[in-house]
């Protein structure tokens, strides 16, 4: 019987507490942390980049640069009545993860624009997701021409996709001219069989041949390996004046070192993928004279660039801005510029998406990497490329040129 009574007590207690629960009040979204006051509407700028895994250093730089731009915009109350927020999503550098992330961003009604992705192969899968949701996507790093120009080079596949970096065509062309000007008429090309590297070498080769140079050898390496002696040995007998490498610094550095150790004592030239201090570290002391191209004026040369670097420093982010920080900052600002127009009369963020896409196409302002504006394909109009050379263990800019 004792059990029975315990039961009754228990049951009545339960009922009582449930009744009490009905009377409870749970505040509607108490915005305690908000600084801009309760009535500001929220629009989000997404970041989609590899935030974990081996590319995370680059991805985090993108994320923080966007955060910096948004923070500055909020501080200056750039858009009246709206607060901007950053929603960062990890794509791990993988297409399917990236697609999930893109879908997640697209399902968030407050997201109007996105900065990303880092990898072209991921963008290929996120483009349609953002396009279907009318969300502006600006990549700070995708250099593959077909992303904006389609298979035939003249049909824009997704109206929502823009980029602040230049394409492989511009870099390859500049590099070709640069080498010819230096009097190097024969070149061996090597690339890593990845989208970026292969594209770069392809457009370089076209431009180089057109400018009268000869490609004496064309090879590839496997980026998972780090011994390139067989390739170097194969290339060396053709006696090239330089090696043009399509790929990134983790392979380019050791390649440069092994080239020189293997008796191929000519400069290695590459694109923005090798324009990194780590390249010099990996390539060692024999890298003096190696060449690279990068997009835009040297960041530390322009006032905007200097300010960006100083601000970034001041914000004390855990990771450095890295290679794509400037482009990401410009991309975020391009979206913010567009939002100034599109959000003006909008009731909510979602309804402003189409207007934002339209407005981004028309922005024009001076950014960290030069003038920011887009052509009819969504490519950046300003195609300033700078050539760099390794001198005394540092990248030193040699010349800049607008190649458009």
């Amino acid at each position, binding site marked *: 019987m004792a*059990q029975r009574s*315990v*039961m009754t007590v*228990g049951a009545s*207690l*339960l009922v009582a*507490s449930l009744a*009490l*629960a009905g*009377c*409870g*009040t*749970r*505040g509607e979204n*108490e915005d*305690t*942390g908000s600084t801009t006051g309760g009535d500001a509407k929220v629009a989000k700028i997404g970041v989609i980049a590899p*935030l*974990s*895994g081996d590319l*995370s250093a680059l991805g985090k730089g993108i994320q923080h640069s966007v955060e910096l731009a948004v923070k500055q915009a909020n501080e200056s109350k750039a858009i009246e009545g709206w607060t901007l927020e950053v929603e960062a999503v*990890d794509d*791990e550098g*993988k*297409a*399917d*993860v990236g*697609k*999930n992330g893109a*879908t*997640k961003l*697209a*399902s*968030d009604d407050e997201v109007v624009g996105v900065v990303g992705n880092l990898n*072209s*192969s991921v963008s*290929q*899968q996120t*483009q*349609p*997701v953002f396009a*279907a949701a009318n969300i502006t996507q600006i990549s700070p790093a995708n250099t*593959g021409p*077909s992303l904006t120009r*389609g*298979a*035939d080079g003249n*049909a824009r*596949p997704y109206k929502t996709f823009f980029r602040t970096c230049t394409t492989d065509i511009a870099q390859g062309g500049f590099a070709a001219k640069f080498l010819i000007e230096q009097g190097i008429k024969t070149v061996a090309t090597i690339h890593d*069989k*990845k*989208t970026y*590297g*292969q*594209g770069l070498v392809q457009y370089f080769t076209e431009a180089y041949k057109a400018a009268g140079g000869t490609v004496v050898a*064309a090879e*590839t390496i496997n980026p998972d390996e780090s011994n390139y002696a067989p390739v170097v040995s194969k290339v060396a007998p053709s006696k090239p004046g330089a090696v043009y490498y399509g790929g990134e610094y983790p392979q380019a550095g050791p390649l440069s070192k092994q080239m020189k150790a293997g008796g191929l004592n000519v400069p290695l030239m590459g694109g923005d993928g090798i324009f990194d201090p780590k390249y010099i570290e990996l390539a060692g002391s024999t890298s003096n004279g190696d060449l690279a191209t990068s997009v835009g004026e040297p960041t530390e040369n322009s006032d905007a660039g200097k300010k960006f670097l100083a601000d970034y420093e001041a914000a004390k982010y855990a990771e450095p801005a890295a290679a794509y920080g400037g482009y990401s900052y410009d991309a975020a600002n391009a979206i913010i510029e567009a939002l100034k127009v599109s959000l003006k009369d909008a009731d909510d963020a979602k309804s402003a998406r189409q207007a934002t896409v339209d407005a981004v196409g028309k922005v024009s302002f001076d950014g960290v990497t030069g003038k920011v504006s887009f052509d009819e394909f969504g490519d950046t109009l300003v195609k300033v490329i700078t050539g760099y050379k390794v001198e005394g263990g540092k990248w030193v800019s040699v010349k800049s040129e607008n190649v458009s």
Partner: protein
Amino acid sequence: MSTSTTDLTHGHDDDAVKVPLLERIPGRGSAAAWPLGLAGVLILVGGTFLSWSYTSDVLGDLSVDFYPNGVQICMIALGVAALLFLLAHRGPLHRFGEWLDTAAAVRVLGLGAVAYMVITLGIIAYQSGGLVNINPGGWISLLGALLLAASGLMLVSRQHRDPLFAKTSSWLEISTIVVLMALVLFGAAYALDIGDGGSFLLFLLFVSAVALALTRAGAFTWVGLIAQKNRPVLMLGAFAVAFLFPFTQGGSDENMSIATQVLIFAATALGLNIVVGLAGLLDLGYIAFLGAGAYVGAVLSASAFATIDWKPPFIVVVLVGALFSAMLGLIIGSPTLRVSGDYLAIVTLAFGEIFRFTMGNLDGSNGPDITNGPNGIPAIPDLAIGSFDFGQPHTIAGITLGRFANYYFLLLLIAAIIILVFTRLNNSRIGRGWVAIREDEKAAEAMGVNVFGLKLFAFAGGAFLAGMAGTVKAHHDVSVTPDQYIFLESAFLLAAIVLGGMGTVAGVIVGATILKLLPEKLRFIADYRLLIFGLVLVLMMRFRPEGLIASHRRKLEFHEDDEELAQRIEAVHLEETEVKA
């Protein structure tokens, strides 16, 4: 409690180790245990109605009195479950208690509740900067959980009958299945909706505590039996749940994107399960067959980057992709299936790498231009079957279903086909042949089983199914690139099978879901994901090599020396045959 000394004769295989430890607990078997448990439940549940946290931004919002949020509701549910078991142990529900090891269930629930509370309070303290931020409700619930755990440890299992032999009416069975299915649907939808990782983790803990308690109590033995008995109902229910799932998403594609990937992954893993789980062949390059299908799908699509001008209808593409994949399976299989197990694993691994390199090379400069090399084939248009465009949202019964939901249904169909092939082959002459080969290849050969033919068939058949899934994947993904088909993906597929359970459909689906869903939901551990993955593989092989939901036979194969297990499984089998007859 006169039977307290002889209660542990009931043979769960690992009880033997745990008994001495348990028996050393002070107060074990005392009469206070049961009321202590009740008190624990009351305090526990009572605590959930009070605020747990001072700040409002941790784990949703735990700062409001008399308004439990999701995290607290899970705790209430846990308490209610413990209450039911306590009442079944002694009290109004004792009729059920006769069939169940109620003490074990209370023990698991109690310990689970403690873990749950400790983690919750830990998260609150960590995220809001100190233990001060924990409000009294949290401490009260923790106290309740501790009492419940103590009660569970002190309770002694009564002599109970094996639920295997419980005879139940069919309405009870069918309604149990329906309720379980509904819970699965509800739970899945709820879990997917949880935004932050902490809450998701806690929900997982809650689900596993309840599941473990039911297992410990022996309830799953009975569930397994009625599932066998009412197989059609179960299958129907499972598909109904899977079919209804998109409708719970309120038109949002966020989770559907994940769901489609889970399905692609699960379908592929099911295909691999034919090779590994049924035929016992280790394939470490299986992703290549999915890739072969995807490339066929891409090359024959209307993408501007496609290199072949033939644009057949999709159904033809599916067949071509599947056949192409199967052909690759034959090419790699026929010379190498004669080599022994380990070697085969390496050969398939090498084949997977060859596939990836080749796809990266066939770009016009290092080979004929077929795959566009590393750039892959992007911009693959959405499928359109008849007038149904998979790219466009459709509205059904007032609920909008987006692009991914469309693909979800198609993939569900493909998964259903693969499941059908899997189960029917398993229960046929061919399936028996495979088991025989796994058990003793030489004896199988000596009994006239066509060992080589059956292995080759498994290999090519598995490849066929993966190729089929691949063609859909190409359209679903929009682009096909070689870097999606790396070795790690094959390892993941294998892991899905190993984690879930070799040779079972449910196991593989569970495994695939875990491997695809957890990383998405637990993004805060993203960087440690692979580390944990590696560790889990090692631990699984050490402690539960047959996987979470293993087929009986596989379980036995991994426990060659366990005679008790063999007896138990035979008893289950006999009961099942009897029930079916």
